Structure formats: structure tokens, C-alpha cells
């Protein structure tokens, strides 16, 4: 059983990581905790669902739809809400509160539009095959999620470390004022980051909706709570942290179910979180200093 649980932990951890990557990106570059990321995640899933059911398009088209629609929402949020608050130099907790309001609005709007019940993707959109090896099994979809999260992490790290764009983003993460003095198009990159992070969130939404067989208006909220735990464990703003933190949380949850008892699962996860905050608040890879102006 242990081997299978390890595989379960891996796939669950990557599910969390997939959500957390977009979430942490916004904090890293914009310095904002975007609590509407859960709603964006949900919007991506619904967009994909509409494309598949109403237009009968295949899977790749629905992923593209989720990417585009969620990205558009991310852009709009940045343009209409985050940017005005930036211009006003609002203390960083104010945008967080605004994103809370957006999340409430989006979640409930989608309930009004699509109904509160669970929907699912038509079967057959993703092959249901299970892969068996070495006494454990994993489904094709889970494997895809695992590979994708590692690939995304690698890709984002590459961009961050080895490209001009990455250097610019890191400069902004240090100090937006200094970066703009250096001639970097700070506003433009803020838009880009918000859009890409949201697009990633939307794609995560589709994949996880397929994985869990459930699309419903509040689907982003539990993921958001887990996402908060992941980025705290891994370090807020750090890309490696999103993946490692996700794996850590997945591992902690699965192992506590398997060997302690499933009732204590959430207590263990949040207890760990709390401990990390007390002992090493910046998480595994985070920086200690708060960002300068």
C-alpha cells in the first residue's frame, strides 16, 4: 500500500502545485495576494465545459478556451482593480481585500448563471486508462498533471533565470520603482504577469475538474485554502516553492490519512502550516525581507 500512497501523494501534490504556481507568480511580481485566483480557476473550468458541451470541441480546444478566457479575466482584474490601487499606492492589504470581493462576486455570479449543482465533463474527453507498473497504478490524466507541473516549473524557472524578461520580472519583484527607473516597462509586465498567472489558473481549473469529475461554482474555494497553505510552506513568490510546497502538502495529507487517520488530515496539514509560520515564516524558499517600495 505504501507505494500506491506515494504515487497518490505525488499526483495530489502536483494538483496543488498547479494551482499554486499562478497564485505565487502574482505575489512574487505584484506583491499582491490575489484571493480571486480560486474564482479564476473556476472560470477556466466553466469556460472549458461550455466549449466542450455546447460547441462539441475536443479537449485541446477547451484547454485553449480556458487559457484565453481566464487570462482575459486576469487582465481585466489587473486593469480595472489592481492598477488603480497601484497608482494610489494603496497598502498591500487593500488589493487583497478587493480580490476577496471579486471572488465573492464571481463565485456567486456563476452560481446564478450556471446553477449550484455539480456538472462534469462528458466522459470520453480524457481517456480513462490506468497505467500499471511496479505494483502501483496511476491514470493517464494524473500522469499528465504531474508532468505538466514539473514542466511548468522548469519553464517558468528558465524564463526567470535565463531570459531578459525574467531578469526584468525579478527586478520588479525587488523594487518596482527602481526597476522603472532602469527603463523596465513595469506596468506592461504587471499586466503580463496577471494575465499569464490567471491563464495558468484557468488551465489548472480544467485539468483538476477533469481529475475530480466535478465542476461547481465554489470549486475554487477549497483549492484557494490549500493554495494559501502551499505558498506559505514553499515561500510566497517562489516558483520552486509552489511545486515543492505542493508536494509537501500532498505528501502530508496522504500520509496522515494512510497512517494516522483521515479525521486528522486537515489538522495535520494546517498544524504544519502554523508551525512553519512560527519557526520559519518565509517558508522553504521565500525571502525574509518585505519588498521595498
Amino acid at each position, binding site marked *: 500500500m505504501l507505494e500506491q500512497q506515494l504515487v497518490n501523494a505525488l499526483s495530489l501534490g502536483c494538483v496543488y502545485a498547479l494551482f499554486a504556481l499562478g497564485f505565487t507568480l502574482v505575489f512574487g511580481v505584484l506583491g499582491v495576494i490575489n484571493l480571486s485566483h480560486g474564482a479564476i480557476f473556476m472560470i477556466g473550468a466553466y469556460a472549458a465545459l461550455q466549449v466542450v458541451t455546447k460547441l462539441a470541441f475536443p479537449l485541446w480546444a477547451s484547454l485553449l478556451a480556458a487559457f484565453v478566457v481566464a487570462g482575459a479575466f486576469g487582465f481585466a482584474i489587473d486593469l480595472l482593480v489592481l492598477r488603480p490601487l497601484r497608482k494610489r499606492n494603496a497598502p498591500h492589504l487593500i488589493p487583497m481585500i478587493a480580490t476577496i470581493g471579486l471572488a465573492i462576486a464571481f463565485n456567486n455570479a456563476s452560481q446564478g448563471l450556471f446553477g449550484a449543482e455539480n456538472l462534469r465533463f462528458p466522459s470520453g474527453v480524457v481517456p480513462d486508462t490506468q497505467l500499471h507498473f511496479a505494483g502501483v497504478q496511476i491514470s493517464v490524466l494524473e500522469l499528465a498533471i504531474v508532468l505538466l507541473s514539473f514542466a511548468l516549473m522548469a519553464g517558468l524557472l528558465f524564463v526567470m533565470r535565463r531570459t531578459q524578461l525574467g531578469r526584468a520580472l525579478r527586478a520588479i519583484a525587488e523594487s518596482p520603482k527602481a526597476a522603472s527607473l532602469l527603463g523596465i516597462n513595469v506596468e506592461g509586465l504587471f499586466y503580463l504577469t496577471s494575465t499569464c498567472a490567471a491563464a495558468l489558473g484557468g488551465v489548472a481549473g480544467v485539468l483538476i475538474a477533469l481529475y475530480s469529475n466535478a465542476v461547481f461554482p465554489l470549486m475554487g474555494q477549497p483549492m484557494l485554502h490549500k493554495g494559501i497553505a502551499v505558498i506559505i510552506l514553499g515561500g510566497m513568490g517562489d516558483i520552486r516553492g509552489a511545486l515543492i510546497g505542493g508536494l509537501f502538502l500532498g505528501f502530508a495529507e496522504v500520509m496522515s490519512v494512510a497512517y494516522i487517520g483521515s479525521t486528522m488530515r486537515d489538522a495535520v496539514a494546517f498544524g504544519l502550516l502554523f508551525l512553519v509560520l512560527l519557526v520559519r515564516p518565509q517558508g522553504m524558499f521565500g525571502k525574509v525581507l*518585505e519588498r521595498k517600495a
Partner: protein
Amino acid sequence: MEWFDNFWSVYSNLVLTIGINALLALSIWLTLSCGLLAMANAAFMGIGAYTASLLTMNAGAPFPVALAGGIVAPTLVALLIGGPTLRLSGVYLAMATLGFGEVVRVLILNAESLTGGALGLNGIPQSTQWWHVVLALVLVLLILWRLRRSRIGRAFEAIKEDGIAASLMGIGVMAHKMLAFALGAAIAGLAGALNAHLTFFIGPSEFGFDRGVDILTMAILGGTAGLTGPVLGALIITLLPELLRAFKDFRTMMNGAILVLIVLFLPKGLWDPLRFKQWFARAPRKPDSMPGKAA
């Protein structure tokens, strides 16, 4: 008085809830005034509610004792976790306290034999009278008002502006933060105890993330400049579901939209004395060519 009797039988719960929510909003205002975004007040409310209810139901304690228990328990917890937690600041503190809130919720859920777990505590006697809520609110407002005007209040402001400078000036930053945190917990606990004895029933899901967001919204909406803001915010947020009944399915959506609009357009909240002054102040006179004339 028949009109009043009718009104009261329909709306008594609403009015008392406004009072209790005002207490909650004030509790978070207190921590905010010291520069702490501590999102743990929903959890403290829960601890207060459960302690008070268990005292009433299991130990047969009289109401004042239960209320006292509901105040003391969260204060003790706050003092316990305050030490390590308050070393954090800004978003880290917010996240830590959110995490703490979840830990409390899970503990309540799992301590079934004591708290009833997911089934909650049912059949709590309805001991809360209108004057309890009024008295609590008046007392808390009085305490906070005096606090604001005292050295402690000024120390809070200093810490809020710049914690390092404040400590360099000799203000015991940690001690003051603990005071704000623990007192906030006490007020939230009182609100929880009163609420539990008003609605016959409490369950773990009422004291989680959603409640924390509600409390924060009330304070931010109303405005954190003074004591009026949180009370106003509590009034509006509590009444909003009633007022928005016309929107039916989209009611909660309006809640969220309103929050965004307030943050965008009224950053200091509704009750902003500075803004009022600006509205009602005379237009500044153009500087005269005559020297010595005040503007």
C-alpha cells in the same frame, strides 16, 4: 406601542445581530489600529461561543459566568499564540492567523465528544436580551474610545506607522501588539458568546474563513479612521441581505461587487472624517499678492 411590538417580533434578531456584528467589527478595528491584519477574530469568536455554550449547557453556569468564560478563553489563547505569531507582520501575519483559524475549526470539528463535531451544539438557551448587547456595545465603545485617547492609543498609532521607529522611541512594540491582539480576542469572544445564546445553535462552519472575511469587510467598508466606521460597516453588512432581497439569486454577488467598489472608490471606507471635511471645507483662497494675509 403596538407598532413597536410588531416591529420587534419581526426584526429583533436582526437588530441584535447588528449589535453583535458591531462588536466583531470593533474587535478587528482594534487590531488594525495597531497595524496588525490579524484574521483570527472569527476563530476567537468561535472559541468564545463554544466556551460559553458549554459552560451553560454542561456546567449549568449562570449567564454572566458563561459570558465571562467566553471572554477569558479566547484571551488566553491569544496570549498563548500571540508571542510567536506577532513577530510576523503584514501578509505573513494575515496568513498565519488565517491558518490558525483553520486549525481551530478542525480542532472543533474533531473534538466531537466535547463540541458535538460537525453537528454543533444545539438547544442553547436564549439568554441574550437586547440590553446585554447594548451594554456590551456601550462598554466596548467606551473602553476603545478611552484607549484611543490614551498613551496606549498613541503608541498603537506609532506602531502602525512605523514599528521600528516606534521601538527606537522606547515604545514596547511587542507588549502593545499583544494588548491589541488579546483585547481584540476578548471582544470577539464576547460577541461569540452573545451570538450563541441568541440563535440556539452553533456549528464549526460558522467561524471559518467566510466569517473572517465578513468581519474584515465590515471594518473596511465602514472605515477605520474612528470608532463610528466599524459600527456603520456592521450595520450595512448585516442589513444588506435584507435590502438586497430583490436581487434574489444575485444577492451575494452584489455583496462582493459592493466590496470591490468600496475598496476602489472609497479607500478609507464610508466614514472618513477627512473626506467629510474636504467636502464641507471652504475652497482654499488663492494666495494674495498682499503679504501677511493667511490663505
